[in-house]
């Protein structure tokens, strides 16, 4: 904390403590939500390296299957799911549409986001399984 003089009135400014995010559960989960992007970015960089390694086709390519990599991937998957759920849940706050001059309820917007997510996941899974055979 520090004291400061502003004009004729002396005021006291309290600096933000570095542990502000531990003050309330809401702050903590906000930091978790933001932090999940970091391991996801690391995993995606690793994924790019794997794509580069596979540029010569299936011959001579052996994907990582070490226990450490599998555990890391599972943890990143959980982070990705948490990030996706929180992001899509907030869509109802952000998006606002009107149909026939009536606003669409935010719950419907959120449900539609989760529906689109499921469809997109199914399409990606189909592409991976069908073309990966």
């Amino acid at each position, binding site marked *: *904390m520090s*004291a*400061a003089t*502003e004009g004729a*009135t*002396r*005021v*006291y*400014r*309290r600096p*933000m403590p570095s542990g*502000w*995010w531990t*003050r*309330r559960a*809401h*702050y903590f989960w*906000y930091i978790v939500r*933001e932090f999940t992007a970091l391991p996801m970015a690391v995993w995606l960089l690793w994924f790019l390296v794997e794509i580069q390694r596979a540029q010569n086709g299936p011959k001579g390519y052996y994907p990582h299957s070490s226990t450490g990599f599998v555990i890391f991937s599972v943890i990143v998957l959980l982070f990705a799911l948490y990030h996706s759920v929180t992001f899509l849940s*907030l869509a109802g*706050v*952000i*998006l*606002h549409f009107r149909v026939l*001059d*009536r*606003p669409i309820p935010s719950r419907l917007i959120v449900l539609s986001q989760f529906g689109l997510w499921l469809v997109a996941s199914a399409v990606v899974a189909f592409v991976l399984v069908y073309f990966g055979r």
Partner: protein
Amino acid sequence: MPDKKITVRATRFDPDKDEKPHVQSYEIPFPDDSMVVLDALNYIKAHVDGSLSYRWSCRMGICGSCGMMVDGVPKLTCNAFLRDYWPRPVTVEPLNNFPIVRDLVIDMDDFMHKLKSVKPWIIRKQEMPLGAGEHRQTNEQIDEFRQFSQCINCMLCYAACPVYGLDDKFLGPAATALARRYNLDSRDQGLKQRLPMVADPDGVWECSFVGECSVVCPKGVDPAKAIQQTKLDTTMRFVLPYGNRE
């Protein structure tokens, strides 16, 4: 329980004497379950220590004057019941993220400046003469902005916002909610005058959607929603060919 008491731990700061704030404890009678934190402060001022300074006015959750940190949470002290804290001591501090003027009184100049900067009033390109009649609105048009008009400028949202706490250049929740309230008003034509403030990097784009501003609002306003929707609208104005409309 005839002699029920509660301990109030209040922040004290005298700018003429103290280098930094300190906490002072007061044990006061708590005879009535309907007592609120503001009642406790008024008791202390009337019967124990008349030098304790704090703001209050209406005592009914309308004026927005008595906002303080109650056990670390921004609250209107007229709406924070002692029974929710008893038998533990209740800690009362000035609102976070604002400079302290004295005891529980904060300096609200920054907020007032930001509030004025978004021009929270109806702007018309050309005023209609009074004789021309009212600016009539449908219920649907009022519903567009109704919740944002409930803001009482209590600044609890600023005290809850870590983004404002880390960078006080941020326009902040209440000012943005009020800007949106007028931008959504069918009678208003001042959108382009408010955009330089709300669409600035220190405006809505500084917000990282913590969302605590909406949690602590005592009037059910959702400033986080106002900010995120303003982000979307300003992006659409930039991206879409017809977006730069009034």
